């Protein structure tokens, strides 16, 4: 049997999904189930003077209505889970429902529980809330100013934290031959998985068992926090993430809504379901990015970069959400030097409270922002000294012989060959020809732009002791069990909780490879805390490099035990056996063999096991990696800007990514495509906009442009493979590469096209209106 690793295999998870047999949270229906709906704040900042539910409770079908006051003392608040150390972090716990004040549009104010969906929504309209409106502040720079409205009265200047890392003496800039200073705004975006958040809760008042089905990327984290919030022993709280319709970071967060649903189920002794509608999702599910980033990059006229100083003013929203504080600090701050050997770097991050929806991790989490600032700044530097964007990158790349490489931000990149990806991308693009074509077209008054980005990501979250050192309240190892049934059929249990990324298939490939059993004999199970003892979920491209590694190790352990049994039965020493294609064969004695399936039966029958061996064939692994993994790559974007309309046409997009060893190229490509759509979406179309009084202006798919099929050309994606030394699979993360690399590639391309207009900077999203206005202002070369 050929190795299963590196093979394009159709996904095992697809048949149920394409036949309508998926089981998403809103598909769950339980006897006696009630339906919940939330009343949400219509004000960005207001005192709640009175809530009157007296008319609403009379509505037909209404069973109960809960306000914030009803829950005081009955539920705990929901904490943040990333206490970044050394930055005077002022975390504010959030009440399950607002009690005295609302701090952003969309904050939960009351919850109606009714016999059906329509009745619950009817009653919402009849709840009267009297607000005393307060002055709101939505922008982070305004919020930092003296005299700005305070989101939390005891947090001065709304400064939730100030984090600093690295050091660069002022002389490094004062004495530099070249310094470029740039200011970028990473606009606020909304993750928008197609399945919004949802929860179903069922309580057994006899046993005290609570089962919650919810849209979760990390059910064990939800169990850990909700157990505390609801005061239910972890052993009696079962969280099940059934089929989950995408997460992109939005379903990492521990929200109050799901816990209130569970509270109601316990209180009413009936199952309760809630499904967020899309308008609610826009207001109430964590947003992302929203950072003002100032960069100073110093270097020499020959293109050598010598020092980098970065300031990030991050809009945290009204609370520090689950991973919130870690995103602009650890995830962004430690990666600011990108793929370059910049010897000195320093970062400071202002985390600011505002009257907006909290921000948290979103595909890439910190790395897209970090790649964006350095890749834009490197282009600015190249422009300043008149160097080609390709050459400046070649000159400053960390050379491949320097890995593992300690960066100026004190992280160790595990492995890399940056030149390889760049060369490959240039070759695919036909870079020289493109530059010639650009010149030709300019003569005709057509504006072609070629944009480049190279990147390094920090993925595969682990190791746990690092997590502890940086204040994350979670471990970062992963758990896997490989269980072999007497028939030889295999169940794989993983603590990672994939939700669309295809690990049911890739993990099965890993196990098939190790055990030599057919793929169809392997089931991968996840997302149930009662079935899987512990695990930390799927985010930060950790599932395969950490979770998959645990699977590989557990499978290896199963093989070792099976081999011992085979040797015992065949009455030879282990060294005399070879194992391939699922057969233990005595070397040099054809026919003297045992199949893996025969050994599975023997192990479980236990009639004849080696002395002292326990029955059954099962192994577990709790894999804690020694380092993060650092995928990298080079992307090239080609655009044409219509000078009459400002419309940007994506002509080509080339992505060369190195994610270490690729287990299923088809699935990995799909991850890159999806990531690209989200990153290009941010560059060109997406953006959450707050109005002056803190109203979310872009609150539906009608006023928030989601990328659609006809927005894209065929994406040209390939992989190079530089294995990671930190896990047995050699795998790095793939899910976030596209989102990280594409915004700077696209923006650099557009700015390259707009050079004749003297335009050197525009903030995302590059809407036609914005581009057209800039061109009108800009000077046109003769």
């Amino acid at each position, binding site marked *: 049997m050929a190795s299963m690793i590196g093979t394009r295999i159709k996904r095992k998870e697809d048949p149920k999904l394409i036949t309508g047999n998926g089981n998403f949270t809103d598909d769950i229906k339980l006897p006696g189930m009630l339906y919940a709906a939330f009343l949400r704040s219509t004000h960005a900042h207001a005192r709640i003077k009175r809530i009157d539910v007296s008319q609403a409770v009379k509505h037909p079908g209404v069973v109960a209505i809960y306000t914030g006051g009803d829950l005081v003392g009955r539920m705990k608040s929901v904490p943040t889970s990333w206490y970044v150390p050394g930055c005077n972090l002022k975390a504010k716990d959030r009440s399950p429902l607002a009690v005295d004040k609302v701090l952003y549009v969309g904050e939960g104010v009351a919850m109606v529980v009714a016999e059906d969906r329509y009745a619950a929504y009817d009653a919402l309209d009849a709840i009267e809330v009297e607000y005393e409106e307060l002055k709101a502040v939505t922008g982070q720079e305004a919020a930092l100013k003296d005299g700005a409205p305070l989101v939390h009265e005891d947090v001065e200047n709304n400064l939730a934290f100030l984090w600093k890392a690295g050091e660069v003496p002022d002389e490094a800039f004062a004495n530099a031959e070249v310094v470029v200073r740039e200011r970028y705004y990473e606009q606020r975006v909304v993750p928008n998985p197609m399945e919004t958040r949802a929860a179903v809760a069922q309580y057994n008042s006899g046993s005290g068992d609570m089962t919650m089905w919810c849209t979760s990327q990390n059910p064990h984290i939800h169990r850990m926090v909700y157990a505390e919030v609801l005061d239910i022993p972890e052993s009696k709280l079962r969280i099940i993430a059934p089929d989950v319709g995408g997460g992109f970071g939005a379903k990492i967060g521990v929200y109050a809504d799901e816990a209130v649903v569970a509270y109601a189920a316990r209180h009413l002794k009936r199952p309760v379901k809630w499904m967020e509608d899309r308008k609610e999702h826009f207001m109430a599910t964590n947003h992302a990015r929203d950072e003002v980033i100032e960069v100073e990059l110093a270097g020499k006229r020959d293109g050598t970069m010598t020092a980098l100083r970065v300031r990030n003013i991050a809009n945290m929203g009204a609370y520090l959400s689950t991973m919130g504080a870690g995103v602009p600090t650890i995830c962004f701050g430690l990666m600011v030097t990108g793929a370059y050997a910049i010897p000195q770097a320093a970062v400071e991050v202002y985390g600011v409270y505002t009257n907006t929806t909290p921000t948290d991790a979103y595909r890439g989490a910190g790395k897209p922002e970090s790649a964006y600032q350095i890749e834009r700044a490197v282009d600015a530097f190249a422009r300043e000294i008149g160097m080609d964007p390709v050459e400046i990158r070649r000159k400053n790349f960390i050379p491949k012989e320097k890995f593992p490489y300690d960066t100026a931000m004190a992280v160790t990149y595990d492995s890399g060959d940056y030149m390889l990806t760049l060369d490959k991308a240039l070759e695919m693009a036909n870079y020289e020809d493109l530059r010639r074509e650009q010149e030709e077209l300019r003569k005709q008054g057509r504006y072609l732009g070629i944009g480049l980005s190279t990147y390094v990501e920090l993925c595969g979250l682990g190791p746990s002791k690092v997590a502890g050192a940086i204040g994350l309240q979670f471990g970062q190892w992963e758990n896997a069990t490989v269980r072999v049934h007497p028939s030889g059929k295999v169940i794989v249990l993983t603590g990672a909780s994939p939700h669309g990324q295809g690990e049911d298939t890739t993990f099965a490939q890993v196990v098939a490879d190790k055990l030599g059993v057919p793929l169809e004999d392997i089931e991968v199970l996840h997302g149930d805390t009662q079935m899987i003892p512990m695990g930390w979920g799927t985010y930060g491209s950790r599932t395969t490099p950490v979770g998959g590694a645990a699977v590989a190790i557990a499978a290896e352990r199963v093989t070792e035990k099976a081999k011992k049994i085979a040797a015992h039965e065949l009455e030879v020493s282990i060294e005399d056996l070879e194992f391939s294609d699922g057969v233990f064969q005595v070397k040099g004695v054809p026919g003297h063999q045992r199949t893996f399936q025969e050994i599975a039966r023997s192990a479980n029958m236990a009639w004849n096991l080696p002395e002292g061996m326990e029955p059954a064939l099962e192994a577990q692994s709790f894999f804690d990696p020694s380092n993060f993994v650092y995928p990298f790559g080079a992307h090239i974007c080609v655009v044409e800007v219509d000078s009459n309309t400002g419309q940007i046409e994506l002509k080509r997009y080339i992505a060369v990514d190195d994610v270490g060893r690729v287990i299923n190229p088809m699935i990995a490509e799909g991850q890159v495509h999806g990531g690209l759509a989200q990153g290009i979406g941010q560059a060109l179309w997406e953006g959450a906009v707050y109005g002056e009084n803190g109203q979310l202006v872009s609150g539906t798919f009608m006023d928030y442009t989601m990328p659609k099929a006809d927005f894209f050309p*065929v994406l040209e994606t390939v992989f190079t493979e530089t294995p990671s030394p930190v896990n047995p699979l050699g795998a790095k993360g793939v899910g976030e590469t596209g989102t990280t690399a594409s915004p700077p590639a696209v923006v650099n391309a557009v700015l390259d096209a707009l050079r004749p207009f003297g335009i050197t900077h525009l903030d995302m999203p590059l809407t036609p209106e914005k581009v057209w206005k800039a061109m009108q202002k800009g000077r046109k070369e003769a």
Partner: protein
Amino acid sequence: MSAKKVKISVKVNGVQRTTEVEPRLLLVHYLRDVLDLTGTHVGCDTTQCGACTVMLNDEAVKSCTVLAVQADGGEVTTVEGLGSMEQLHPIQEGFWEKHGLQCGFCTPGVMMATMGLLQENPEPTEKEIREGLKGVICRCTGYQYIVSAIQDAAQRMAEAKREEKVGTLHTGGGK
């Protein structure tokens, strides 16, 4: 306030269903909550995302924008009626073969939209497919493999038509 219920009769995936519903009940909730056909999903409130697309009287419609009473006397096909594991529809085969889905939440709607698209234009170009997908949003796939899946499905359907393998669409049962 709930109004007086009205009786409707709809042929869903080949089976005649007669039920009393509130006049305001959306078709998607009728399918999901009344008939327990949960393959059709709700992704937005504004008819933008297409996750709830079904065939109503041979036309692809977004079932969050149609009242159940409007389907009275009509025929509806949902993903459950498209094909089964025993006999996948060529569109389903195309999506499986070409990795046209990741989380799978929007997929039933996208496949039903594909049905509408291929009925109108059995041999679409890549550009026509992308334009034909204007009514659907997928957040996972970047659309590239959805386009491949639809190209693959179009070929399979053309072949099946040549071999007259595909009968009428409305053959499947409920869940």
